[in-house]
């Protein structure tokens, strides 16, 4: 994912391992990231936070090297001039107002008081907190706190932004607003790394993903390409309707469907080898059946399924 220019990539991880005593946090990880929004996916404990802490120089790799813009962040803090970091930690200076908080931290980049205030107002506006910027952080909701953290990471107009679980614990409204902020940063040409353990969240933000599992790099590339691989795998579609059996009759004749089940009263489970093909025929069949459909779910379309598929393929 390098941009091919002379300048070193924003992030270069070279055969990095990190273990805490007996516990392995990151296992022989290599990758280079530069430009665009990259989702770092993995279940809890996959090594996402460890990876970010390595990048932020908070911990030192047990093996291998980490470089931000070609510089080792453990020994030199100069890359942080161009990095914005949103930690997973919820802790803020509760007694400060949002503007105060962002301004204070902006000054740590060497801005004057006035520059810092101006930039802070700008980024707080960008994350949609203009109305509450004079309120104390202690009175902020979870979503607002996440946005303040993002604002502080953006205040110095960084080239690389690292967001550790920025959507964690946010309500749907906050989630949507944060996602749009992240997308916008990507559109501005910045390198954005955003971690999550929820596939659907990342899917709404970016196509470019890195999947970590047990400290290892499981996959790297385009989410849809990876999903495409998954789609060729047996998949389930769960439909809740009035008469599952009559609907089943309409499906069995279709090409991608190789089997049906009735797991519960009022539920139809369709088994397919090609999820996208199945979804493309689904609307016409539903119309044809004239039934009232209460929901359509893809129980296999989540990170866990993707992981178990990738692990099996990899194995």
């Amino acid at each position: 994912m390098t941009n091919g220019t002379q300048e070193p990539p924003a992030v270069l991880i070279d055969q990095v391992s990190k273990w805490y005593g007996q516990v392995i946090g990151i296992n022989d990880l290599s990758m280079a990231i530069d430009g665009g929004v990259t989702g770092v996916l993995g279940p809890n404990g996959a090594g996402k936070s460890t990876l970010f802490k390595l990048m932020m120089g908070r911990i030192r790799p047990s093996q291998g090297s980490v470089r931000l813009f070609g510089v080792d962040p453990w020994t030199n803090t100069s890359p942080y001039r161009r990095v914005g970091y949103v930690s997973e930690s919820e802790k803020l200076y509760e007694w400060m107002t949002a503007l105060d908080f962002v301004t204070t931290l902006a000054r740590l980049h060497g801005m004057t008081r006035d520059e810092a205030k101006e930039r802070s107002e700008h980024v707080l506006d960008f994350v949609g907190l203009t109305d509450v910027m004079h309120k104390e952080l202690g009175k902020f909701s979870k979503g607002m706190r996440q946005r303040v953290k993002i604002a502080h990471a953006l205040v110095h107009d960084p080239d690389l932004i690292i967001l550790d679980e920025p959507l964690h614990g946010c309500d749907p409204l906050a989630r949507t607003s944060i996602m749009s902020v992240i997308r916008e940063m990507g559109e501005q040409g910045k390198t954005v790394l955003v971690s999550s353990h929820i596939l659907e969240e990342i899917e709404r933000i970016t196509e470019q993903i890195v999947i970590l599992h047990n400290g290892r790099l499981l996959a790297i590339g385009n989410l849809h390409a990876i999903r495409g691989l998954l789609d060729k795998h047996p998949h389930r579609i769960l439909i809740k309707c009035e008469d599952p059996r009559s609907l089943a009759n309409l499906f069995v004749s279709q090409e991608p469907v190789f089997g049906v089940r009735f797991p519960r009263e009022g539920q139809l489970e369709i088994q397919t080898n090609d999820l996208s093909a199945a979804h493309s025929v689904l609307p016409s069949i539903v119309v044809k059946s004239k039934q009232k459909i209460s929901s359509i779910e893809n129980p296999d379309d989540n990170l866990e399924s993707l992981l178990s598929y990738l692990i099996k393929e990899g194995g």
Partner: protein
Amino acid sequence: MDEKGRSLSETVWTRMDRKAGAIIELTMRQLRHRVSTWVVLGVGALLMALLLIFYIDSVRESFEPIDNDGDSVDNDGDGYPMGQERKYGTPDWDSASYPGASVFISESDIDWNDADRTVALNKSWEGSAFFEASWVDDKYSGEWWDSHVDWNLNQEGIPELTDCSDWDLDRILESIWSEACDMGDGDGDGMNTYYVAGKWRGAGIATVPENYYLLWGYWTEEVYVEPEPPEMYINEDGIDCFNGLFLGGPYERYEAADWEESRVECPSETALSGSHGYDNDGDCLALNDGRGDDENENGIRCDVQWIASNGVVTWIEADELVDEDPDEQEYIGELDHRTFVIAVGKMAFVILLGLFIPLFLSLGLVRDETENGTLHLLLSKPIHRAEFIIYRLSGYLAISGSYVITLSLIVGLISSILGPGDQFVRLSDMPVWIGIGAATTLVLAAYGSLFNAMGLISPKYGVYLCIVFGIWEFMMGSFSIVNPNWTVASISISHWALQMIDAVVLLAWPDTIQWAEMDKAFEIGSGLSVFWQPPVHTLGTASAGIALLNSILVLLIVTASWVFIAKSVFSRREIL
């Protein structure tokens, strides 16, 4: 260079002032939001308020005139104060003996082995004799212990005494003391003979027994001496210094007027080695015993020997009762005031505030950020960890240092307004208070960096390490006050800060050595020589300036060392 023209190399160590300003300001605001900050600073202010009350209550009292040598009293109730009685050589325990009272003048005697043992006279007698009396004075009396004989005269003027005419000589000599007995008129001349032992007055023939003595004489006429008011004996013998005109000569050669002429302000630059002091109230001269009146053994009676070296008076020794009742406002007030300033500077500022403020404010400067989980906010910025420690400490120092400097100036201003002297504010105090503020600030820096390092080395047990350090420092500080020469104490931080105060005191008040000596020599007991001694670490130059620079340097090196240790620990620490 990136596309925005920013170079990585110029980002970390450039614009340090702005980054420093931001962290210092953040640290100060954080400290301001903590209750413990206000508690410890409030307790400090309260302590100073109490000390000022103590100053007003106790130290200021020493400006009132006090009879230091206690000679304004009249113990025997004869109407003359002790000072006046000393001057006239009369005791202050005998009401019959007072200035101008008649005095017994002895004329002659018959010793225990004189050959001629009989005399016929009209005298005042003292001793033992067979007295054939033509007249006795029954009004000749004195105190009960004085052995005056009571003649017990009857209405005809005949003594009525024990009859001892039948007694043998041994019985008479053994039995009669402080009285007389009647031996009758043995020779029939109409005059009875009495055996008398004690003091009496009369006319007759006295025969002294073998191995006994008798002396006789007369009493002078009593003259009236005006009793002096007791106030005259308060502050009547001040500390005198002279311009060297008369130094070294025999004391008696000069008149008081000469001394007055050559008197200079004391202590003074001109008042150096030599014989100073003048027994203004004459009580030393009245001693005339050859011991106390030349206690300093310089061969001059009733003076004060001053010894100076390199222009500084280093030793003062006074003869007994010379310059022993100086003016309080001028001397004791000054001594007590200086003692107060130095004691408060050392004990309250350096030792108490110097230890407790850092214990509460600096221990968690970096550690608490880790514990609160807010450290990542600061460390994700282009700031070196060593920089971070220095800025945090600077923020802590900005609060604690400005606090102690303000407090020292307030206490200094109030005490210098209340202090002795004619001027409204004692301006010469101000450099000392600034020195106390500066010494305390350096101590705050040294302890701050030490305690901060302890908090980083052992986040869990650091506080206990700090308490152990604190006890050590408190003990070494206390020892350093009493004996700054003790080498072990110099491995403490407090020792160097106390040395700094000693040096500043000597620079601001160059005559303090002399004052301390005066305190000892004239037994004023202000405690100046306990709380202050000349600075030790002068590298053999005896220069207070060098001692001051030396102490500042040591404190700065200690501070820098602990910052370096904290930095080394912190740079290697992984922040999970």
